[in-house]
């Protein structure tokens, strides 16, 4: 039993990362009933922006670049965690402006629109940065490893898992415990009444969408040191994110978190015994669950299943 522990821990940290990746996707699905297939590309874009900011040639005017590079690595990293998602948020605004036209229609159109956006973003990434792999620098404090029970553990994995827990907690507080969250949820439930109450639903939706894209970018920055930065990372992220949401059930916050953990565990454990098939395990898990439960684990009724 004890030699299983590393694999279980590994699976759990991976699961938290999956939950983090799915978070922005879940927000947009749960609160706007729109599927954002560009989620993965925005995730990748976040990682690329961060890599550019952390690298030796930041995208600033010369003076500012000098001052920026003079900052200690830790400060730069902290600033990047805010600046890169903000830049991705601007892309999110552009997508939302296009997406507006599809509200109220078959959700298929939103899905297809974002699929096109994903293609465009991925191709732009290829054009700008090429197809090579990049590495994201991280501060000394969170890189490296430590010894525990005669095994070497990567510090970064635990740092990333910790960040994931913190962000999941913050998002939960925002949705469940603030009046902003209440309005947004009400808007998803009955947009007409919310509008009649004098709330600017258009702006609200824009905010939710941009928030979702920024979460995607943050997830990209956190996951990048583990997965590496390459154009394909967007697709590698959006599929598990989509899977986690479907497995957890549309409209369920904790469903998504638990589903993320389950997916992480199944990938981690299969990886330990049959690494060839580790990615397959999550699809088998999904098929197993959704065959028996029509709406995933704890899904609610939604227009997405019309």
């Amino acid at each position, binding site marked *: 039993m004890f030699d299983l522990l590393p694999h279980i821990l590994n699976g759990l940290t991976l699961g938290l990362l999956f939950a983090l990746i799915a978070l922005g996707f879940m927000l947009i*699905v749960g609160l706007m009933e729109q*599927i954002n297939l560009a989620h993965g590309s925005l995730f990748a874009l976040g990682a690329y922006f961060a890599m550019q900011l952390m690298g030796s040639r930041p995208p600033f005017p010369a003076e500012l670049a000098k001052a920026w590079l003079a900052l200690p690595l830790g400060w730069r990293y902290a600033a990047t965690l805010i600046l890169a998602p903000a830049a991705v948020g601007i892309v999110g605004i552009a997508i939302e402006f*296009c997406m507006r*036209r*599809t509200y109220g*229609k078959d*959700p*298929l*159109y939103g899905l*297809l*629109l974002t*699929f*096109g*956006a994903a*293609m*465009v973003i*991925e*191709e*732009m990434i*290829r*054009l700008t940065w090429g197809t090579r792999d990049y590495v994201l620098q991280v501060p000394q404090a969170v890189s490296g490893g430590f010894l525990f029970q005669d095994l070497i553990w990567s510090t970064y994995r635990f740092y990333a898992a910790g960040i994931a827990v913190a962000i999941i907690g913050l998002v939960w507080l925002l949705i469940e415990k603030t009046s902003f969250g209440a309005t947004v949820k009400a808007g998803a439930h009955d947009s007409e009444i919310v509008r009649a109450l004098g709330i600017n639903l258009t702006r609200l939706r824009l905010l939710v969408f941009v928030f979702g894209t920024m979460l995607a970018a943050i997830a990209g920055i956190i996951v990048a040191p583990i997965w590496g930065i390459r154009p394909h990372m967007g*697709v590698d992220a959006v*599929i598990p994110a*989509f*899977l986690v949401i*479907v497995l957890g059930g*549309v409209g369920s916050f904790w469903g998504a978190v638990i589903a993320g953990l389950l997916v992480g565990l199944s990938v981690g454990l299969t990886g330990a015994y049959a690494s*060839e*098939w580790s*990615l*397959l395990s999550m*699809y*088998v898990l*999904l*098929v197993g669950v*959704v*065959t028996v439960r*029509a*709406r*995933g684990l704890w*899904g609610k009724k*939604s*227009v*997405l*299943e*019309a």
Partner: protein
Amino acid sequence: MIATSSNQSDSARLVTPAMLVLWLVLATVPLWIARVGLYPYLGIEILIWSLYALAFNLVLGTAGLPSFGHGAYFGIGAYAFGLCQFNVVANLWVCLMAAFVVAGLAGALVALFISHRRGIYYAFMTIAFGQIFWTLAIKSHKITGGEDGLLKIARLPADFGVTSFDLADNVAFYYFVLIVFALAVIGLWRLVHSPYGRVIAAIKQSETRAAHLGYHVWLYKVSIFTLSAAVSGFAGGLFAMAQLAAFPDVMSLHQSGYVVMMTLVGGGLVSFWGPVVGVFLFLIARDVIGALTNAWMLYFGLLFIAVVLFRPEGVAGAVTAMFEKQSAIRRQGHSAMRLLFGGGRWR
């Protein structure tokens, strides 16, 4: 909305004027395709993908079921064709049949799991199964050749007993594919306009209503998915012949996404011919824009976004709308005539 681009009398026909025109134009393709700077192989590719997209549209357009992992069945058909050729018997008809049957079986298996599901859950189950088949194809080195693909598939001669045609040449193979395509189009046209096809269209409008009318919705959903997978597999078998190999690439999510794009850009949701229009646009855009810039996906992506935003019913839908407007004018003209002449003879 079960708008079909054709009028009522066409839907009762075995062969419509539109089909005849299309086939005649397609039959002349090898004569001029090299002169406009393209190549005969592109013609083959377009025909095969058109067949695949038409089969796919049975599920997406006719039945309104979002299937995003259809590449799997296309790929399975290609592998089945190759494996049948190597391990069972190297006969064209048997191997094409194998592609049809094996892909159909895979489709039936998936359909059994998913046909009670709806919307996003249905869509993602198709993705999940697509990914499962794709992973299996990549990882089973011994059977499928892994990522290198199943190589050295031969274009078997079309043996009619009395006489036999060699298909190794691209032009000969083009005509073979064209004949197969023409027959398949007739079959699909009849299927969509049969009582069975009408029930499928009713299910697209409302599953609940169709169920209340006494139709066994689940069975219809399973059968249309199976059929679509089988025809996709058949197209995959032809594709294996065209490429002389079968690769896992066509089963990937990207490629499954392309067939969705082609079908929608063309207007598969409102028109029988939509998928064919889409395949033409997509493959020709790939070659023409691809020759000018290596970022052709960027431009096609932008075009796709524009179509979804401004013409969600696709090219065929836009053309149909134009024609309908014109015929409305003509009809008004007729009624004006009727007023003038005071007779009912103009209908």
